[in-house]
């Protein structure tokens, strides 16, 4: 077996495993954890388009999740529009908002950009928390919105967890494809150049700002879709849960732990960080409240100190070493 065939076989196997997982993971709570895991991977992949490539650190992406969730839910509850269409509408609104916010902020540097996105996210949360109704649409302020039960594909609601699993899996696959594709066309090169050496790119006549705004629009659009997905999965959401700072931070952490600006980073980050935080919270919080968050903090610090490019780097190295080793030893 040559190195390439082995590589391909392993990758096909991995894809097959992921797609058949619900057949043998029948326990709904494990499936739920997997769904949330892919949900985070998807969010982080979307975030990565701005946060990974454009060389800035957005800390307000939960705003777009909220825009997605609220748009599709309001359309469904008030006007009976299927969340599938509401999802697209939410995405478009989020993209427009993203551009409006992005044009003035994306030219800011480092901390200024990070904090202005954070202020936007927090501002939106405060706005929603203080608004009971917007025109004829009920936002319900801090109490959030409950989506009435009605299981059907049209209503984006399923009794079973498996459909949710496949939906988020396909969304993640598409997001990864978009990322991969973008990295191979002009915008990817420009963004990459602009992220690392903004002045140099500017000097070469590349309009980095324009490409950053395009990346922001795509990223916001994709993020909003995740908002709708979450709303339909949980059937209940409220501002603190989906518009909060915590969620925005978590996305950024997963990206940085996994390796920002890479294709595999967000997925690997979610794959490692999510189960750790989920299981340590469940099993350790009763022993000593707060211990799970200390562990989380420790992981953040240790990874940043030893693997500042994220864990994708040693893992890729290990994978390559493994491929070499196996193919060499077999002759």
């Amino acid at each position, binding site marked *: 077996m040559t190195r390439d065939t082995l590589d391909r076989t392993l990758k096909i196997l991995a894809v097959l495993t992921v797609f058949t997982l619900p057949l043998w993971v029948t*326990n*709904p*709570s*494990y499936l*739920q*954890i997997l769904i*949330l895991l892919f949900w985070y991977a998807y969010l982080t992949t979307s975030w990565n388009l701005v946060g990974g490539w454009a060389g800035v650190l957005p800390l307000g992406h939960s705003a777009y999740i909220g825009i997605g969730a609220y748009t599709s839910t309001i359309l469904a509850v008030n006007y009976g529009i299927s969340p599938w269409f509401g999802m697209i509408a939410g995405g478009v609104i989020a993209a427009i908002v993203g551009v409006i916010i992005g044009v003035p902020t994306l030219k800011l540097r480092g901390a200024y950009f990070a904090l202005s996105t954070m202020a936007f996210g927090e501002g939106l949360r*405060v706005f929603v*928390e*203080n608004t009971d109704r917007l025109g004829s649409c009920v936002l319900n*302020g*801090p*109490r*959030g919105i*409950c989506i009435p039960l009605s299981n059907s594909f049209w209503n984006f609601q399923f009794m079973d967890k498996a459909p949710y699993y496949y939906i988020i899996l396909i969304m993640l696959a598409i997001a990864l494809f978009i990322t991969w594709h973008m990295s191979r066309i002009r915008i990817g090169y420009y963004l990459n150049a602009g992220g690392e050496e903004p002045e140099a790119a500017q000097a070469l006549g590349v309009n980095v700002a324009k490409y950053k705004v395009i990346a922001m629009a795509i990223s916001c659009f994709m993020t909003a879709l995740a908002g709708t997905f979450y709303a339909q999965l*949980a*059937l*209940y*959401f*409220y501002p*603190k*849960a989906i518009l909060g700072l915590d969620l925005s931070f978590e996305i950024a952490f997963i990206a940085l732990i996994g390796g920002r600006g890479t294709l595999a980073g967000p997925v690997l980050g979610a794959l490692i960080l999510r189960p750790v935080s*989920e*299981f*340590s*919270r*469940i*099993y*350790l*919080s*009763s*022993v000593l*409240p*707060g211990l*799970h*968050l200390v*562990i989380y903090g*420790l992981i953040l610090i*240790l990874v940043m*100190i*030893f693997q500042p490019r994220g864990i994708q780097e040693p893992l890729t190295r290990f994978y390559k070493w493994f491929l070499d080793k196996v193919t060499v030893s077999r002759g």
Partner: protein
Amino acid sequence: MKRTSLWRNGFFGVAALLFAVVMAVSAGTAIAAKENVVKIGNIIPLSGPSASVGVQNQYACDLATEMINNAGGIKSLGGAKLVNIYVDSKSDPTVGVSSAEQLINNDKVNILSGCWNSAVTYPTTQVAEKYGIPFIVPVSVRNTITERGFKYIFRIAAKDAWWARDQFKFLDDMQKSRNVSLKTIAFVYENGDWGVGMAEQWKPLAAQYGYKIVLDEPYPSTSSDLTPVALKIKKANPDVLLLTSNASDAILLNNTMAEMKVKVKAIVGTGGGHADPMFRKNCGKNAEYMFDVVEWETDLGKAGIPEVNAEFKKRHGYDLAGESVDAFASVFVIADALERAASLDPKKIRDALAKTKLCSGPGMIVSYDCVEFDETGQNKNAGIVMVQYRMIGDSLERVSVWPESAARKGFKTVFPMP
């Protein structure tokens, strides 16, 4: 170089330690599963802003569980012991929902309990209903929790409509008996699920009782300064001030109002932050004469209260609060139902819970006579007591004053507030 190697070693050391802790805890849980036990899954806030009350709930449940287990456990189940599994909800509904699924599917809990925050309880009870696992709600007051036609949800506490109703009834009573005229009213409440829900109950009642609303002010409960709110109250100058506050903001608002010399004829709280033992400890004289609605008080003349409270205080250094008592009583309600069900079948436990009429025993330190659920699963007897803060010696005490039957002997309600 030296530091790096130290760091490396440190890294592996920490990793190994974490691994060991996780393994030990999982092993511990696995062993527990083999014994004759009934597992209760508690989803409560153990970190984040509501952690303070969550921990008090945990302590109360632990005390109750210990009392039941020491008395021989569940006799109809061969002396089965109750085991509490606590999971941190972080006050986050998503976490609540996934924790409930986890507890039901993996830990195979027999009964669920929680979640303190109404926002968490609301979606989490839906999970329990879906799986058909009995869910006891000790505290969360949002009306709709028991108004969805669910079969497996039982609530010990009164719902928020009842709290608001009694606050107005009390004010009405006072106006008549003390010949004080109260014309204007101000609502000040934390801008969360709970505060906004209470304010919604207040508004129609104020209209019904003929008050003029002069201020309707939500505020963020993580405010760093509440002087602006205190000033607004001062400017509006209402006869009655109704408050709904969490712990930290209750203390801050109270002390700020005292500083800004806000004078009102009656201030009425809605439990929560105003019932928190920390409020009493930290406000002192500033809170004297204010009223608060609660479900329970240490001075209620009921057998068992002094002993249980003394034991609790000995362990944790503060008194039981109304909400901890709901949690405490809930464990006895569970034990009682298990005793009668004589089975771990969730359906049978559910049916036993529905037929609950618990009137005696060490757990019944609640203010009313019996715990009984109506067909929606709401405890229909959950009663409400009005207390007034009074200085007794050097310490601020909560004195039950209303209704007459619950009033502490030898105290006369001071109304209006001086």
